């Protein structure tokens, strides 16, 4: 099970965390998954589970600075 994660802030500024599937990672790079599944035009960061809190009691208060999201932006298409 991969600990790779993709982070982006949605239009409301809420932190969203993408969990890639094993089947997708077997056929595509994490960057390709990010380009597909991050909404179009939103900047993202590729990281690991170490980059996120594990305590979900305050999940909706999780934050990550947009300055950290420099690994790419979501593509227009949501398909590989």
């Amino acid at each position, binding site marked *: 099970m991969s600990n790779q994660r993709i982070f982006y802030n949605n239009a409301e500024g809420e932190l*969203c965390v993408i969990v890639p599937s094993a089947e997708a990672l*077997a056929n595509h790079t994490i960057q390709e998954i990010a380009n597909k599944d991050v909404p179009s035009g939103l900047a993202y960061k590729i990281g690991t589970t170490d980059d996120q809190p*594990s305590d979900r009691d305050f*999940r909706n208060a999780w934050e990550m600075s947009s300055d950290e999201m420099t690994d790419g932006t979501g593509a227009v298409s*949501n398909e590989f």
Partner: protein
Amino acid sequence: MSTVKIQGNASGSGAFTIAAPSGNTDRTLTLPDASVTVGVGQAQAWVNFNGTGTVAIRGSANVSSITDNGTGDYNVNFSTAMSDTNYSVSGSAKFETSNNNFALSIGNISGGGNYTTTSLTVNPTTGTTSSRWDCVIVNVQVFR
């Protein structure tokens, strides 16, 4: 060695197509040791994931990822898009510390969710309030 035979249908003119996967890994279609008839309504995608703690996918098919949007708020992202949004979805959720019967709200559009050809929003709820809950087991199946 067994033989491979593909037989056309004399009463129809439609083409039969076997499409290659979009990835770079070879795939093999292995049939069971019995005659089978493939019917309509096969699951087009499914996923079983842990929606608590460090969210993680236990198993899936035709799911590229899930998106953790917040408490009890997840997107299921399809590897290969559905042909349209007329697909059918079923699912279930198990809360970690109670025996409450959790329902799975599907495609909560008014709540900012998706019900598109490429992704679907699911929200575990108790069914009695609009609150969303993280659940230890979330199962989603998509049929078309």
